[in-house]
């Protein structure tokens, strides 16, 4: 167990001034701040060849290198957090290259892996390879000039793309530096030959850790423990990350949890100049007749003023839309030779080509979704445009960091906002960036699906004593609190023990478990092949293109499975707009706009970027301040100009932007109340046109928290309303609940932080999202194989199978570990139950008050809740009850007719 202690205390502990009173704290992994070293200290032990090479390339050591190089040389675990493009990679490798050159000169390099480099980005692997092979060649040249003979230092890449013959070569002659991905590392650790080469790994670099706060990271954390476990010596951990918080947790993730482990943390400050601004395309976002047109004009203007511009949107469809629009409206300015879209649905080759052209300065503009946020060197970018809110300060910083891309350069970014809520959001995120506040990441804990996959891999390597297996697993940060119960439920699942009913099914077991000997091992001849071809955690999805009928204008994509649930004339939401299903043709769905109809089908495909909880709270705080300001304006204490001046200073924005915010907030203030950190505003509203009752919740907590709150409340309301289904719509800024009867008072009384988890588990029981996440979990835990007997299975088939599977699993046990994991994933990773509980505690402690308004019109703040909420249905009524009720309706109809 780890007990968190405050920053100050920890550093006292680290400095070994240990007052007696603190002994009660149990600390396992020790975390220390890293030291910045002088130039002399950094170069002290550099081999002359390496030193000569380094200074032929660079004037001086960078800040990360001053922290990292000596620490790595002294074999200390270290996490280096620094802005993008600040020579982190060389920081990690300099000491390693140095060490290998020393060995190579003495002719002492052995046939084994000395260092393994792991990056979540496959594309980065080739980059890193180049960036290692070149320096090594250059050092070799220098050596030749000095007539020094060096052994060859071998570098190899092993990813999913590596050919069979190269893999075969690797298993004979070990690369001294192995470049790989988390998935391929697991395969390497499961292969017979390579494991032997890996037993003496001295350095282990994990790059882009900030991209690993997910199940891929969980998977990797177990692979790292597998590496530690087979190693005869401790592989020194070197973590590289962009700006990320909380660093201590990330450090523990990297090094694992154990008494004998310690790690240094180097937080290298952002020392690029930041030039950032919020821009609005028009003066008044609500009254302008065509803000869209002005938006493109503004973008065009910005592009013209700079040499190269990188535009971030949040979605693939927006990416395409912007490229097409610019080409369309400014045909003389933009063509295939100078503008391109870059997103994850494009082919790999196509993306590589765009990256290459960007690096070479051929392209003037690249529009991307999130795909260029990470790692790969994309050359010199003058301006980054953040189109629409990036939803979190860390993401905004990451995107901004793509500009300049040389240490000490100025990073130039412009937020271009789409509507008034976006304006507020972007302004607050900008404030957080300038004031250096970063949202926090969390790693999933005790993920049972990933655990199943890795235990399978471990059992394939050799026979294990279960207790030792559990000990090894618990050293991973993500499993340090794994219960014996959960662990053994996975052993049961893998060994094909599903209770009495399925005892006969030996066919399906993956491992054997000897209860007497307490040992496990692999089962079946295909085990290794199954593991290697199904390794990984990233779920596969297949998409259908949505196009406008009959023109074929591209509108976006929806999940194939979602399409299969729709029928003609269904109305659904895509990208905040409503469309009606007309017809399908191949993998295309043709639709028409249906703005005035309400959705007939819930949508869950829109797993968009959620607003960070930290930013949401910051917005709430700002709303609270504004509420106070307007009150003092009312009493004559403060003038409009004073308030606007305050907004410009508080949010670091220009006057016209501040005015827009002022007007928006003032409208809301005059309408009813400004919801804020102390006030949760609920509006009860009856839509005459649709004959529907709505409850609109102004809860600015981000969609992950709102998802949890809305479903729990919706469930309680549905239960109170005679067990009927309830419709919910969720956004970052709040949510709505719609239905016939909405007994809200009782529901709110029953909604308590202590019972939230139980409520939510019941509320998600029949949702599509649980079925979908279950499919992902089933795939990770190898209940459904993506690849089997040499053939890859289509996602559609996997989806169909998961449908059978969830029924079969529920029949065995509601607590079946993989089902339990799917629920955990929905509650903890997709939703944010922890912070939702915090919000409920504020309500219970009276720090947050609820106010219910009956209104004939939604307030200015609520309007977008209705328009942008992504709807889902909380199914309370079960299939049989629905059948009976529908039958009764039918009988009534007949009786009326006869």
């Amino acid at each position, binding site marked *: 167990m780890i007990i968190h202690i405050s920053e100050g205390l920890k550093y006292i502990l680290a400095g070994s001034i240990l007052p007696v009173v603190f002994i009660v704290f149990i600390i396992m992994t020790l975390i220390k701040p890293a030291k910045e070293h002088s130039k002399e200290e950094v170069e002290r032990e550099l081999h002359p060849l390496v030193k000569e090479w380094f200074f032929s390339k660079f004037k001086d050591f960078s800040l990360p290198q001053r922290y990292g190089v000596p620490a790595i040389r002294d074999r200390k675990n270290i996490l280096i957090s620094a802005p993008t493009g600040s020579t982190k990679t060389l920081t990690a490798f300099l000491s390693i290259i140095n060490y290998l050159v020393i060995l190579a000169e003495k002719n002492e390099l052995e046939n084994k892996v000395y260092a393994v480099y792991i990056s979540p980005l496959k594309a980065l692997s080739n980059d890193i390879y180049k960036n290692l092979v070149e320096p090594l060649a250059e050092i070799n040249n220098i050596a030749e000039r000095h007539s020094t003979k060096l052994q060859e230092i071998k570098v190899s890449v092993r990813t999913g793309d590596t050919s069979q013959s190269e893999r075969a070569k690797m298993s004979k002659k070990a690369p001294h530096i192995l470049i790989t991905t988390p998935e391929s590392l697991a395969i390497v650790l499961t292969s017979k030959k390579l494991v032997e080469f890996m037993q003496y790994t001295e350095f282990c670099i994990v790059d882009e850790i900030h991209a690993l706060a997910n199940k891929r990271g969980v998977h990797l954390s177990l692979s790292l423990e597998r590496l530690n476990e087979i190693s005869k010596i401790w592989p020194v951990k070197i973590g590289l990350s962009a700006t990320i918080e909380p660093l201590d947790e990330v450090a523990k993730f990297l090094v694992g949890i154990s008494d004998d482990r310690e790690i240094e943390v180097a937080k290298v400050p952002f020392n690029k100049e930041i030039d950032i601004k919020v821009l609005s395309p028009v003066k008044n976002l609500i009254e302008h007749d065509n803000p869209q047109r002005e938006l493109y004009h503004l973008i065009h203007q910005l592009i013209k003023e700079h040499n190269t511009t990188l535009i971030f949107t949040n979605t693939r469809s927006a990416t395409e839309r912007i490229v097409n629009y610019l080409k369309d409206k400014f045909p003389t300015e933009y063509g295939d030779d100078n503008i391109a879209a870059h997103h994850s649905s494009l082919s790999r080759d196509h993306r590589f080509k765009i990256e290459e052209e960007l690096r070479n300065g051929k392209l003037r503009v690249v529009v991307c979704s999130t795909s260029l946020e990470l790692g790969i060197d994309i050359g010199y970018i003058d301006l980054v445009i953040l189109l629409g809110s990036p939803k979190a300060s860390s993401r905004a910083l990451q995107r901004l960091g793509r500009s300049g891309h040389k240490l000490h350069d100025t990073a130039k970014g412009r937020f271009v906002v789409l509507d008034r809520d976006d304006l507020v959001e972007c302004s607050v995120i900008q404030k957080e960036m300038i004031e250096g506040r970063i949202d926090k990441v969390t790693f999933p804990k005790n993920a049972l699906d990933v655990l199943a996959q890795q235990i399978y891999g471990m059992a394939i390597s050799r026979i294990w004593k279960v207790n030792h297996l559990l000990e090894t697993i618990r050293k991973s940060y993500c499993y340090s609190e794994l219960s014996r119960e959960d662990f053994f439920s996975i052993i049961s699942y893998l060994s094909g023990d*599903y209770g009495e*009913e*399925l005892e006969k*099914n030996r*066919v*399906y077991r*993956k491992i054997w478990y000897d209860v007497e000997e307490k040992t496990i091992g692999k089962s079946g001849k295909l085990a290794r092949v199954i593991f290697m071809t199904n390794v990984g955690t990233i779920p596969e999805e297949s998409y259908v293109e949505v196009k406008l009928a009959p023109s074929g204008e591209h509108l976006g994509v929806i999940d194939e499975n979602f399409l299969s*649930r729709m*029928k*003609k*004339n269904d109305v659904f939401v895509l990208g905040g707009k409503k469309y009606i299903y007309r017809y399908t043709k191949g993998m295309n769905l043709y639709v028409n706009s249906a703005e005035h109809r309400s*959705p*007939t*089908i*819930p949508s869950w495909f829109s797993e968009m970027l959620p607003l960070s909880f930290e930013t949401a709270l910051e917005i709430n705080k700002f709303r609270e301040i504004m509420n106070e300001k307007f009150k003092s304006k009312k009493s004559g204490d403060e003038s409009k100009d004073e308030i606007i001046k305050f907004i410009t200073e508080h949010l670091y924005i220009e006057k016209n932007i501040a005015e827009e915010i002022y007007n928006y907030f003032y409208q809301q203030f005059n309408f009813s109340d400004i919801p804020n950190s102390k006030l949760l505003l609920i509006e009860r509203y009856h839509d005459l046109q649709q004959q529907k009752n709505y409850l609109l919740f102004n809860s600015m907590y981000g969609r992950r928290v709102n998802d949890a709150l809305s479903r729990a409340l919706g469930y309680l309301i549905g239960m109170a309303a005679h067990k009927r*289904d309830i*419709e919910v719509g969720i956004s970052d800024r709040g949510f709505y609940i719609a239905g016939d009867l909405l007994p809200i008072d009782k529901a709110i009384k029953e909604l308590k932080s202590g019972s939230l988890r139980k409520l939510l588990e019941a509320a998600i029981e029949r949702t599509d999202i649980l079925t979908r996440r279950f499919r992902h979990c*089933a795939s990770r835990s*190898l*209940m*459904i*194989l*993506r*690849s*089997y*007997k040499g053939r890859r*299975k289509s996602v559609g*088939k*996997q989806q169909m*199978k998961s449908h*059978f*599977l969830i*029924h*079969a*699993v529920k*029949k065995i046990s509601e607590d079946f570990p993989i089902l339990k994991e799917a629920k955990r994933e929905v509650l903890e990773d997709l939703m944010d139950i922890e912070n939702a509980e915090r919000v409920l505690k504020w309500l219970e402690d009276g720090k947050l008050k609820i106010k219910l308004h009956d209104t004939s019109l939604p307030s200015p703040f609520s309007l977008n809740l209705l328009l942008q909420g992504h*709807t889902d*249905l909380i*199914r309370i*009524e079960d*299939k*049989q009850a*629905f*059948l*009976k009720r*529908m*039958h009764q*309706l*039918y009988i009534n*109809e*007949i009786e009326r*007719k*006869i």
Partner: protein
Amino acid sequence: MVIGKIKLQKIIMERKNREFLLIGKSVFFPSSGILALSDLQIGYEVMLKNQGLYFPLSQLRRTIRGIEEIINKIHAKNYTISRIILLGDIKHHFGYDYEEKSQVRELLEFLENKVGRNNLILIRGNHEKFDLDGRDYADFFIDKATGTLFLHGHKLFSGINLKSVNRIVMGHIHPAVYLQESGGVKRERYKCFLVGKWKHKGVVILPSFFPLIEGTALNSNDKLKHNDYGEDFGIIPLKELRKLTVLIVGIDKVYEFGRLKNL
């Protein structure tokens, strides 16, 4: 959802007269003691496994348990079962699969134990490309006493004299329907029987007995050229199917929902 008064009463009367009983996903004829089931699709699970669904779904066990429940219900009503007719597509694979074969054999042995080998009538469906273990498969079966024709339903055979037939009992199309409340968001799919008249003969179309999939939703607006298995609809054209009455299989009983075309 409108249904002609006379039509409805006639069906109700017919069922009141106990010419046939719909029990679970089966149909039972008290006068002849015939129990008919259709489209068991044993081996579907085996196919899924070969496609990488590495988890047991217990299809065979669930099928056997389902049939046992039906038999118990019939016995509880003091009827005896003289014959069991399987209306084709007992197996799923078009070709041969060892595991499927052993499962089909287990099922047939279970049924033979109930009524005797001679009273288990196996109708050849489009999935039965060859006979199993030398058991007799027929293209159709006519119960002469009642003039009831039992067949799979994918095609008519030249040996059938339709004139002497009063009623057709078939499977093959896996009928199911969607229920959706007008203006509502919720939509669910249910297995159903289709009952009514075609060519002046009584028709009973059975849902698939197969527990894993509901079947082909016949009232979806998608163009229904084929059923879920990509096969053409059977001997009764869709236009005529739409005139039949829908009876949805609930856990406790069947629920009537009027003509398919009105649903």
